[in-house]
Structures are given as structure tokens and as C-alpha cells.
């Protein structure tokens, strides 16, 4: 078939940047709907709140790019938050090494999921479902079911105004690093290739299994860090946080234009996907919409956003 040139540049622009356009429209709508929305305080709160979901969605994106899925991220948040808090309070470890140790432990759990998927040929859905209950269970064991309050001068420094809110800065850096990885490194290329046709990649002399293990490991590290963020904001490590966070992360990736079959997905657009979800929640809170209808509305907005993706990408194919 002959390659066709796109006729209409405006249409092409709309198709190419639909995620960003949805986001902008939503931003404008929110500003109009509530005078409290476009204020420094609300935006700063949003940024603090969304630092965790954004990096977790990035981890999910890399798993989804390989054609897998990671349902364990919510539980790994709880694990990261609980483990870090226990290390600080019960063992008196300085909070920086405590966080790093918790992240390394999460890495091992993620690798375990990855090994089940790559070597034991389990489906990502099943392996990560098992890890979801395991990690949550471990978190409860570590905290003995009680929230662990951490001392001032430890985790709370991560959200301290005087240090320019470190978690926001760290998240921005992580997003940029993963954008660069996807765009410019052989690793990013191979992750996408594995999701497109893992047999072809294996026959081209690439050790596919190692890459599959690595994406689950990355996802676990970022999830545990996200859990630490939440602990920092509440000054409390807890085994009950992050429930359902995996679904938000998947929704963000999908709104960002990724294919759940693998091989297609974008870092910045995933971030926007997470922020779209955040804006919806935020504006409904500001307008005092009760929580149950909020869920219903959120669900429909996810459908609308993804439907728009599907429709525009169909356009792309038939133009």
C-alpha cells in the first residue's frame, strides 16, 4: 500500500495532541466553574497530591508497554510506606537510608512478579494479583495493623515548603528521566519492541525475559516511593493506603493513549492522563459534589476520554 499524506493539518494536530487538548479544555472548564480552582494554594495542593499517582502511572506505563499489567502497585505503596516508617521508628534508622532500603525491598518484590511472568509464563494479571495480596499482607505484618506515626524532622521534610517541596521536584526529575529513557535509549526501544512482538525480539538476539523482569521491578520501585510520599504528607506509615491506586494508574496510562496490548504508549501523555483524573476529582471536591456521585462521574469521564482516543486513532488509520 502506498503511504498516504495527511490532508488536513489541523485535523492531524488534533489527533496527534488529543490528550493535551482534553487536559487544556478541562483546565479552562475548572477555572470557570470554581473561583477557588486557579489559586496558588489549590494548585500547590494538587501538585503535592499528584506526585505519587504520576510516578506510579509511569511505572505502570513501562509494564503496559511490554504487554503486561501490574495490579500490585497499590499494595506496594502500602508496603513502601509501612516499611520506611517501621525502619525509622522501630530501628532508629535515618529516614534517607530507610526510604532507600524500603525501595530496594520493593524492587525485590517487583522482580519476583517479573520472574513469575517471564520465566514461569504466568500472565501479568495473575502474577501481580498474587503480589497485590502478598505485599499488602506484608505491610500489615510490619505495622501490626496500626498506623505508625513518624517523628517530626524525618519524612515530613519531603513535603517541607522551605526545601521547595522535595517530592514534587523528585517526581518531575523522574518523569524527565523516564521520558529520556523511552525516547533515546536502547532500553526504551526494546521495551516497546517486546510489547510489539516478543518472538521477533527474541529471535533478534535480545534477552526478552530480563526486560520483562526489569519493568515489573521499575514499577515496584516507583510504587514504593509513591507510598513514601503519602506517608510523608500524613507523617504516618500505613498498610491501608493505596487501595485501588492500580486502577487509577492504568486509567492514566490508557487516557495517555497507550495500548493495553503493548507496544504503544507515551511518558508525557501518561502524566497528563494522571492529571486529567486529578482535575476531575479536584473540581468536584471544590464544588462539593458528594463522594458517591463523584465515582460515577469519574467513570464516565474515563470512558469519554478513552472513547475520544479510539475515535481519533481510527481517523488516523483511515485518513
Amino acid at each position, binding site marked *: *500500500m*502506498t503511504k498516504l499524506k495527511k490532508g488536513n493539518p489541523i485535523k492531524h494536530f488534533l489527533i496527534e495532541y488529543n490528550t493535551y487538548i482534553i487536559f487544556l479544555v478541562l483546565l479552562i472548564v475548572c477555572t470557570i466553574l470554581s473561583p477557588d480552582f486557579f489559586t496558588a494554594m489549590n494548585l500547590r495542593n494538587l501538585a503535592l497530591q499528584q506526585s505519587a499517582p504520576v510516578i506510579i502511572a509511569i511505572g505502570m506505563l513501562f509494564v503496559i508497554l511490554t504487554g503486561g499489567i501490574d495490579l500490585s502497585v497499590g499494595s506496594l505503596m502500602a508496603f513502601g510506606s509501612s516499611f520506611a516508617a517501621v525502619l525509622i521508628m522501630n530501628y532508629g534508622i535515618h529516614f534517607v537510608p530507610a526510604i532507600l532500603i524500603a525501595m530496594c525491598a520493593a524492587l525485590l518484590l517487583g522482580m519476583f512478579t517479573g520472574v513469575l511472568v517471564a520465566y514461569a509464563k504466568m500472565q501479568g494479571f495473575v502474577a501481580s494479583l498474587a503480589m497485590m495480596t502478598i505485599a499488602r499482607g506484608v505491610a500489615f505484618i510490619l505495622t501490626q495493623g496500626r498506623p505508625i506515626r513518624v517523628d517530626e524532622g524525618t519524612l515530613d521534610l519531603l513535603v517541607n515548603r522551605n526545601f521547595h517541596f522535595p517530592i514534587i521536584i523528585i517526581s518531575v526529575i523522574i518523569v524527565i528521566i523516564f521520558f529520556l529513557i523511552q525516547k533515546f535509549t536502547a*532500553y526504551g526501544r526494546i521495551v*516497546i519492541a517486546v510489547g*510489539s512482538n516478543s518472538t521477533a525480539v527474541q*529471535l*533478534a538476539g535480545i*534477552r526478552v525475559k530480563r526486560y520483562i523482569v526489569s519493568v515489573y521491578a521499575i514499577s515496584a520501585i516507583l510504587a514504593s516511593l509513591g507510598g513514601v510520599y503519602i506517608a510523608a504528607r500524613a507523617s504516618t506509615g500505613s498498610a491501608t493506603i493505596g487501595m485501588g491506586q492500580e486502577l487509577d494508574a492504568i486509567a492514566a496510562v490508557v487516557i495517555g493513549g497507550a495500548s493495553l496490548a503493548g*507496544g504503544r504508549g507515551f511518558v508525557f501523555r501518561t502524566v497528563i492522563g494522571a492529571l486529567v483524573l486529578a482535575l476531575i476529582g479536584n473540581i468536584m471536591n471544590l464544588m462539593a459534589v458528594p463522594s458517591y456521585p463523584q465515582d460515577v462521574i469519574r467513570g464516565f469521564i474515563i470512558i469519554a476520554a478513552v472513547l475520544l482516543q479510539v475515535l481519533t486513532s481510527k481517523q488516523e488509520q483511515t*485518513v
Partner: protein
Amino acid sequence: MQSNSRLEMKHISKQFGGVTALDEVSFEIKPGEVHALIGENGAGKSTLMKILSGAYQKDKGEILLEGQLAKINTPKDAIDLGVAVIYQEFMLAPDLTVAENIMIDKLSTGKGIINWRKLKILAKEQLSKLGFDEIDPGAKVGSLSVAYQQVVEICKCLTRNAKVLVLDEPTAVLTFTEIQKLFEIINRLKNEGVSIVYISHRLEEIFELSDRITILKDGGYVGCVNTNEIDKHRLVTMMVGRELNQLFPDRHAKIGEEILRVEALHAGKLVNDVSFCLRAGEVLGFSGLVGAGRTETMRALFGVDPKESGKVTYFGKEIIFKEPKQAIQQGLGLLSEDRKKQGLMLEQSIRINTTLAAMHKAVNKFGIVNHKKEKEYVKEILGSISTKYGSPEDNVNSLSGGNQQKVALAKWIAADCKCIILDEPTRGVDVGAKMEIYKLINELAEKGVGVIMISSEMPEIIGMCDRVIVMRQGIVSGELTRDELSEDNLIKSAMGV
């Protein structure tokens, strides 16, 4: 044969965007006729048949069935009018039984209750009409061989009272004996008055089966001829639009030292005590029926599948390739037989596909890809094998079959192979692209690369190979030198007579 037509497609035109896919193409078929439709890939055969089956809408022209103007807007219209198309990829549900698949459109009668016994009896009836009593209507379709699946697909169409049956490359996946069986079915249907449109790249089959041939080229109508009034040479000229003096170009390769020796290789059921050797600059053919163990031998050698025993000597050193990565590092390449499932990432760009096995060339020691260098490199390689494409950023599935295969080959050329295994390198590509691939194989051999070519097409084996290994049921059943090569000898070896 009656003189009035069963189906007439008159002056059909179709455009995609600004590109003309069909321009005033006409096609006509009589009851009880086998009418071959041929043309290179991209000539418009599939588009024409998709219009007939209701998958596409025509822009201009008309379709007449039994002399009556037919409106075909959806696939259901086509089925209701008795037009059935069997594509290369079957439309079967592998987890359902044979009977369920054959009667699938009778399952939703609206009554909610299915008479399974009756369903099975009806399916059985249809199967035995075609002479396939051995297929169990209760068996899962996924457990059947490809040939039987094809029979099920044909039965499914016949229960819908298909009067026009389109077969798109039906023999591409069949073995020699299975092809003979298919031909029997076709002749039987023909005698019952079914009109059969037969699409194939294999000219031998067309001459054996068809009454008439319609030739398309670049979306245009070239002509319609009676099969018994034309020879192969003239037919190819009509298809390609130029003289193809020689299908198999000359090779001036110097056959050098032995580079690969495989001794007593065992791997699974289909690789039993296989031994052979390959020299630099040599094209070594692997012939045999589908399922004789040729692909399995190469996969075991290349380190994809595990080996049980055997000795491999490669460039004078004894070595066992444990995984493809190791083989590729030593300059061994494997072009797999199924480019869609195992060779290419269809949804990714031509650039990414071309450099997949040789990414190290455009990557620095920190793992960062130099896109500019990579793009230039891709253009250079694809240019050197005259691949037609728009931009390296286009998806591979925007290319024709022949050009897709060239991208799959380019991947191994980029990897600088010293020895390359080509598994059915010309499967599903048209005559013009075939010749270019042969030329490419010759160029590789002339550079001193050792080439192993697995092929089920005997003319290709005879035209291209210096030496041929024949396999049968997992063992080497013969080795033929260039002088001994003939279809006769190959068949005898392959069948074990």
C-alpha cells in the same frame, strides 16, 4: 459449462484517500468455472475481493449476480447472496467444535435452545459430502491440522449455500498431499456448479486448476485469457508488464571453505540424527514436505529450541548456541518463515524493525541511541536492496508483502551475518519481489556468506541451490548435488520412495 455468467463485476473503481486501488476493473465468472485471479502484491486482487465480500464499498461500477444487479454493502449482504470468501487467516473459533464452527450462523436462531445432535448430524453430512468422514464433528477446531481447518472453513461456506467461493492463497500453508486433496474438493465443487475464484502466486497450480485467468496490475485490468491458450512465460509477462527473461538470476559465487558442520543433531520428535555441512559462498537448500523437521532443525541450531545432543562446528570451532543472542554474536542469522508472527513488529516503524538485531551499531556505551546515524544507516541498507517505502518512520504494515520481507531480510543484513538461514524467504511475495530476493541471496553468496534456504517451492530450490538436503519425518532422507536436482528426484526423496 453454461454460457451465461454467474457473477459479473463491471468497471469497478475504488480509491483510498487520493490513491487509486482499483481502476475500471472487470471480472466475470460462470457457474462451474474455476477462474484464477492473479497479479503481483498490490495489484488489487484483495481489494476487488473485499468489495465482492462487502468488506469494502466500491466507488464506481456495478455487480451483477445471475444477471441481476446486486447490492453488496455489508459482509452479510454477500453471504445472503451466496458469495463466500476464504482468506488465508481462517475465520474460525479454535475453542469451538467442528460442528459448532460449521453451523455457526445457525447457532443464533433466536430460539435459545440448540439441538446439538442435529447440529452434529448436519455438520457430518456436509463433511462427508466433501469426502472427509475422518473429521470428527465433535473435535475442537484448534486441535485440527491447518488442512482440516481449511476443510471446516469450506464446509461453513457451503452450508450457507455459497454459489461463488473465493479462495485466497489456499495452498500457502498446505503440504503436497494436502494440496492434492484440496484440488479434489475444488473439482468436486466445480462439478456441482459452484463458481470458484482462485487467487494464488503459484503458477503451476493455476495451470492445473483454472479454466480462465484474469490478470490485474497496479489496480488496473490487464486482461482475461483462457488457460489452455497461454503459457507460463506470456502469463508472467502480462503480470509483471515486462519481460522476465530469467526468474533465477545467475550467480558468480566462489564456494570456499566449510564454515558450518552439524553432526547427529537431535532435538525433539522432528529432528533425528540430522547432519549436514555448509561452505562459504554456497546456497544449501532444505527441501521436504511441511512438517518434515526443516524449520525445527534450524531453530534448534540457532538456539531457539533446546537440543538433546549433537555436535556443531562453526568456523572451525566446536560450539553450541544456547540462545539466539549467542548465535547472532557469532554472525549467524535466521529469517523465520512467518514474518508476521516471528519476524516483524508490524505496528512499529521500518527503522526500528531494520535495526532490531544490530542496535549496537547506533548505540553508544551508555545505551543511548543515535537517531540520526540510525536513520542514515537504515536508508543505506534498504536502498541497497531496492526496498520501496515512504519514510523510515512509517509502520511496517504500510508496506506490501514483498517489501515487508525485504525489511525482515534487511534486519539480518544489518547484523552482518557470515552465515544466514532463510526459512521460506519468498513465501507470499509476488514474482517481481521474488526475483529481487533471489538476486539478494546471490549477492550474499558472492560476498562469501553461507546461505541455507528452506523452501517448499521446488522450482525455487532447483533454480537457486548448489546442493540440497531433503528431509522426511525428522531425518535427512537424501542429499542431491546440483546435477541431480529435478522435481522428480526431490519428490522421491521427500516421500521416501
